[in-house]
């Protein structure tokens, strides 16, 4: 890395892909208003995105897109992959914003998503091993709650969840615990908003927690409300490996935010909303998938070692 870039690393930490946005409604096999905020996972050498697709009623469902390299040649399901079911009345107004992790102890993928109930958004969970068939475990957190992801393993004998309840517009990141994925308790604040800062109004988990030798890397979004709308930007935090309720470090600065046209033009301008990350375990190279302006899907790349260097040196 040359010196110029190194000195300005926070500004270069994430590189936008040249052909962004990688997925838009124009690519879609059926009519849609927006495709955004995808969960991401790598399986059998393919990148799988589970995209949030909003129809013209204003309701969302989830549809799978697959690519051999995670950037191009996307193969998109002809029909919605996961749609709301009436048996779960909390899904009445759609399902949104999936986060995916592989649970080794179950040899299954867990998808945590938002169900938009008539009483407000809630967190639901479904299990799958092929992304064609899903088994719902139901609504795991009542309204208003969003931006939830599991950790990929049990910690201290229990599953752990990060989520974001919202109260009268203000929202901190919380952590909760479960013996069985279905029933949750011991809810507590993990990462609060910071009055006056770029993340003063709301914070919420982005992609699922990333396991590193230094602890759990958290990519989160922070919201500042301005006179002309909301700015959704991205910050970092590191949680203790064995006690993820403990924050080791939190970035002062945001490290990624709306900058280019497709992040400013859309249903909600000024939004970069990462929901999935894929890390190459050998090189540390990572791809961060994000919804841009609640309209399309984009990807940015970085390297896990660079991120950890910056966090360790507390220079961001």
């Amino acid at each position, binding site marked *: 890395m040359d010196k110029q870039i190194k000195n300005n690393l926070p500004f270069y930490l994430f590189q936008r892909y040249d052909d962004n946005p990688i997925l838009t409604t124009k690519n879609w096999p059926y009519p849609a208003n927006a495709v955004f905020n995808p969960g991401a996972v790598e399986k059998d050498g393919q990148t799988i995105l589970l995209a949030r697709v909003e129809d013209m009623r204003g309701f969302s469902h989830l549809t799978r897109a697959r690519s051999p390299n995670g950037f191009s040649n996307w193969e998109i399901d002809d029909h919605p992959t996961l749609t709301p079911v009436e048996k779960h009345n*909390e899904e009445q107004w759609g399902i949104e914003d999936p986060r995916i992790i592989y649970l080794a102890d179950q040899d299954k993928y867990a998808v945590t998503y938002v169900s938009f109930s008539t009483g407000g958004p809630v967190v639901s969970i479904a299990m799958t091993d092929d992304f064609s068939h899903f088994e719902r475990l139901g*609504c795991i957190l009542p*309204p208003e709650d969003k931006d939830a992801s599991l950790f990929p393993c049990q910690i201290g004998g229990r599953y752990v969840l990060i989520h974001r309840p919202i109260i009268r517009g203000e929202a901190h990141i919380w952590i909760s615990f479960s013996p069985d994925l279905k029933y949750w308790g011991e809810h507590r604040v993990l990462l609060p908003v910071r009055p006056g800062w770029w993340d003063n109004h709301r914070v919420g988990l982005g992609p699922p927690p990333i396991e590193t030798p230094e602890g759990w890397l958290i990519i989160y979004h922070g919201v500042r409300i301005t006179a002309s709308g909301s700015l959704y930007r991205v910050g970092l935090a590191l949680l203790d490996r064995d006690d993820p309720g403990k924050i080791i470090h939190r970035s002062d600065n945001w490290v990624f935010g709306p900058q280019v046209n497709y992040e400013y033009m859309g249903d909600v301008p000024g939004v970069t909303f990462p929901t999935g990350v894929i890390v190459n375990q050998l090189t540390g190279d990572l791809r961060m998938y994000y919804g841009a302006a609640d309209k399309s899907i984009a990807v940015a790349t970085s390297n896990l070692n660079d991120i950890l260097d910056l966090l360790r040196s507390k220079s961001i």
Partner: protein
Amino acid sequence: MSLNNSYDELFQRDKNNPILSIDDWHYPVNSVFNCGATLLNGETLLLVRVEDRKGFSHLTTAISKDGITSWKIDTHPTLLPDPEHYPEEIWGIEDPRITYIEELQQYFIAYTSYSRGGPLVSLARTKDFVHFERCGAILPPEDKDAALFPVRFNGKWVMLHRPVSSTPGAPAHIWISFSPDLHHWGDHRILIRAREGGWWDANRIGLSPPPLAIPEGWLILYHGVRRTAGGVIYRLGLALLDLEDPTRLVRRSEEWIFGPRENYEREGDVDDVVFPCGWIADNDLVRMYYGGADSRIALATAKLSDLRDYITHCPQVDSIYGWS
């Protein structure tokens, strides 16, 4: 010809109302209201929400032989917030609902903890209302008005509660949730919906005292909140859940059955509020203890046979499962 233009009153106010006020307290407080109620060793025990001048609440017991007079009030706060071990209690604990669970030989208290992130539901248990053991925060914010059923259904404990969303146009319904162990909760579903438009219980409802078993099912007393130009009005309605399957709403009153009328219900820290958190069925008499205008405690009684007769003549509810 004589006019009969008055509704039949199911609940009759006690002539000693308000039965408890800050003047009865052993230490200085701002208000005493919204109390849980149960029988303990043949006496009536109220677990009273007490608000101090910081604006924070704690819980204090008051015990009486007849449930009306001669209250023995704890000389000190009985259950204080413990933010050091339970950070969610930082701004106080409020509005307890008491359920005696025979299987576990203990009383369980669902109460509101006022956390930094908003009000949420906590649970504690006790045998004697002197020593309490906390189960921690069992639902994240914003959630209130929770109470347990006294028995398990299909092996699971069941709770009703009232989460609030800040999404515009999302009403506050009563939800039902399940637990294998009372600590961890899930399978949350909408149970009783706030009505819409001009109804007395449009947009915001919440459970009042814990569910009461009657031969016809589980009797539910709930509050509906009407927002007016001058503030809010809290009134009460009835509903009935299936005895075997409490996820089934069977009947629901169209009209409210009790609302603010007397001075002690109409004027206080929050005007026009009647807010029961406990009721005790003693043979055919039901004693309902309620907060009056967030300032004091009052009592109203009804005949259980009248309540049963009333609810079984309320309209049947068609569908609750599925989408509205």
